[in-house]
């Protein structure tokens, strides 16, 4: 049997806009696979992520949307904002459905029924789907190395059903399932599941990376790297949800930067060829976690000891990235130094350039 050459789309990597002194985004493709008229909340972080991801992927793309805000709010009344083929799948079957689409195209190409370039197959799963309900199916798709990109748009909760805690909800985050009270003053007691590392460790042949809407070009490049990678790729993207995090809508991108600058969302890439983490990403500055926390109502109940715990967590992440910690951040990890939120303000004065 004659072998059939699979034509692949190789998407160019965008130049960084902040090289040099100017700010000017690179030329982006003109087509809009994601259009307005959807019913997500104003300022919705997952939607921003959707916009950037689909812009980076282009028109020859197939989207899979397991249940979650990006399905429900986007596609009621049989009406979707997707200008490319899109399908909803049950929340637990994100990985199996996506694997099926990829396998179908592989088969169609093999049988000569599909001519043209292999489409970008992207699954957009919420953290509830990716980290809890659909974890097994996603792990299966990654392990079998289907040629697809699975994105977890991480809004750190089950948003669509009215803000319940997921395994990605941060320590101290208030949700309807983790309300603070006299017995559990911090709200959520557990630290979040380190999902992206699980994926990298468990499926080392996959391209795995973390990203944030606060760094659009970096995010779009990681999407393209994931799509260019032959085989399965996994991306976890920080996407703030104004409804669940309780913040003012204009801050969506700002939070995406702050969460990285505060060390709560380490940015890295897993290189499947070298089987190694790439920790070279550096935000412009380092800040105490309180700067990130104070913008959000879901952390409004925290006491000094909880903030210190979160700082300790952030400091561990910085150490893991190989960044030298400034004294002020080490101090801020001790509750004694943060008697109340007011003294946290002192630590804020230490915005540090790396």
């Amino acid at each position, binding site marked *: 049997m004659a072998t059939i050459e699979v034509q692949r789309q190789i998407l160019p990597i965008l130049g960084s806009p902040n090289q040099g002194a100017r700010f000017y985004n690179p030329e982006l493709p003109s087509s809009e696979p994601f259009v307005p*008229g959807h019913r997500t909340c104003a*300022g919705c972080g997952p*939607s*921003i992520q959707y916009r950037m991801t689909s812009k980076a992927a282009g028109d020859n793309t197939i989207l899979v949307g397991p249940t979650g805000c990006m399905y429900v709010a986007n596609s009621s009344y049989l009406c979707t904002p997707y200008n490319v083929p899109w399908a909803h799948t049950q929340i637990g079957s994100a990985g199996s459905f996506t694997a099926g689409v990829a396998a179908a195209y592989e088969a169609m190409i093999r049988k000569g029924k599909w001519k043209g370039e292999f489409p970008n197959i992207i699954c957009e799963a919420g953290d509830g789907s990716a980290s809890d309900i659909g974890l097994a199916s996603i792990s299966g798709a990654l392990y079998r190395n289907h040629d697809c990109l699975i994105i977890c748009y991480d809004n750190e909760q089950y948003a669509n059903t009215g803000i319940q805690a997921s395994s990605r909800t941060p320590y101290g985050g208030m949700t309807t399932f983790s309300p603070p009270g006299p017995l559990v003053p911090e709200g959520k007691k557990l630290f979040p599941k380190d999902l992206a590392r699980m994926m990298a460790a468990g499926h080392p042949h996959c391209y795995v990376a973390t990203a944030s809407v606060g760094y659009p070009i970096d995010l779009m490049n990681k999407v393209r790297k994931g799509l260019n990678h032959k085989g399965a790729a996994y991306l976890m993207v920080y996407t703030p949800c104004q409804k669940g995090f309780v913040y003012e809508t204009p801050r969506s991108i700002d939070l995406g930067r702050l969460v990285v600058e505060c060390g709560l969302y380490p940015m890295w890439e897993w290189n499947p060829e070298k089987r190694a983490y790439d920790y070279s990403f550096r935000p412009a500055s380092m800040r105490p976690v309180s700067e990130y926390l104070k913008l959000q109502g879901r952390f409004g109940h925290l006491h000094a000891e909880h903030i210190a715990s979160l700082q300790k967590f952030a400091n561990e992440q910085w150490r893991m990235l190989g960044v030298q910690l400034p004294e002020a951040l080490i101090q801020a990890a001790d509750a004694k130094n943060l008697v109340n939120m007011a003294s946290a303000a002192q630590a804020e004065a230490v915005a540090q350039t790396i």
Partner: protein
Amino acid sequence: MSTKGTRIPDWLTVPFAGITPAPSQEKGQDLFPTGNWRSIRPVYRDKLPPCNNACGTNEKIQGYLDLVKRGKYLDAYALIKEDMPFPSVTGRVCYHPCEQACNRGQYDEAISIRAVERFLGDLGQALTHDVVKAGKPNGKKVAVVGSGPAGHSAAYQLARLGYKVTILEKSPKAGGLNRGGIPDWVLPQDVLDREIERLVELGITIKTNCEVGKDVSWDELKKNYDACVLAVGLTEPNSVRAEGENKAGVLYGLPFLRDIGMGTSKVKLGPRVAVIGGGNTAIDCAREALRQGAVEVTMITVEANPKEMPAVPEDLHDMVEEGVDLMHGRAVTAVLGNGKVEALQLHPARFSGAINASPITVDKDAPAQRFAVDNVIIAVGQHASLAWLPAEFKNERGTIKIDRFGRLGDTKFFAAGDIVQLGSGQPLMVVNAVGDGKRVAFNLDKVLRGEALQPRTIPIDVIVDLNRMNMTYFPHFPRVQQTLLPPVSRRRTQDEVIQALTEEQAVEEASRCFSCGTCNACDNCYLVCPEPCIARPERSNGLYKILVDYCKGCRVCIEECPTGCLEGVPELDFDTGVVRMDTAFAISPGLHGRQAEELRKLGDRPAKNI
């Protein structure tokens, strides 16, 4: 098989309640005009960058820096030429009020605007044909008296408007203080010559050695021209009213420099020279004195320290570097010597702050100091020579009396430049003279065409507050420095001290510009909108559109706009009885479209602080 477009069965493509056609790139999802969720609307509103505002002729600085950073040098040159006839000159001599106002100065270091301007000016000088053309002849004749910056600018703008312009200049060469004031090592004569050639290329006639009041009378001006611009500058030096000021060896700054500039100087300086005065002219005199052979040059000022001197700090620094000494807090009370100056008598002095009487208080009781010199150059300002002007048009400051349009009463005469700006609170400098000449030219045109004159008080929103911009997008970056000739090699030559930027340096420096308050098409709003409902058919300022049918008013775009040209405007007052839900489920897209048209007008409302 197409991979484009959601496949919808035929029977579902008809719009009816609850079911909508496939979304399209152009229109989005018609059935859900989510714009009616919005209470604040983002609007694009360019603001005036502080640099443009501070520039005496309001050059579109942000605009040409933006073009330079994209390599569109010729466009940039054409843009600067709208307001500035000779960027090659101001790129060298301007005291750059724009750089003092530059927002980047609050962040790290101001943009080196003047250096980029010079880069563009030199580029223009090299062109065989200038980009600027004379306007279609309108058959009207205008005389411009004086060929300094103000006259040059007025003549240039009038020629562009189609007037037949004649410049009358009393000196043997055109240029005003650009030639007979500003020294060659700041502005080489050939640069100025080339700019004056450009005026001739525009069809302007320049008559040198032609003095109004001597060669041409006031009545002849009135008779022979449809209108006239008086840009005669301040040609007479002030004296210090010291005893013995008429002795040989006493020079005045203005004629000293003027004669050198015109090539008619016969001055031979002795080894020790004192310069009286603390302003820019005094600095030029002191530095020129070194180049004319003086060995020790001392500048004597009433100001108590360098900070108080009304001088450009860089020039002061360069002067001290060249070896000029400073002596502060002294006034010359007498010039001593037998027929020829041998020494100065100095007394302690300070500024009293008095406005009317002499502003300088001299402590005559203190012991006098004798300061031996061979020459003294007095550079304490200049005044006008207006004997030829009818008295009704003179004012108590000894300058020309004008209305707020620059016009002399009800006549067709206008005046511009130093001759009206002296004592008006405006600093006397080339760029202010250029701006004045430009504005007066436009008003002259209005008068001759019988149009109403507009006072120049348009309300402007100058963006000076960095909080209105998003600084996270601008990494710190040092200013590109122009190289200077080493001080030792400067002392005896007329070579230009400050060197030009290379092309790469000019682009690098222009790239540092924040583009304050003016969209530079960075695409950020376009990229971060969650809907996304920001469209741009073409990537250019002024072409970004917010699809108000869909914008939910999240204001992410406003927050993330690096340049601060997006702002929020309150959409509707809920107490005015406007029913918003009537369009919530508009089955046809028209309904919302009509409302949107109404809402568009809300953009005229003042911005609310959000």
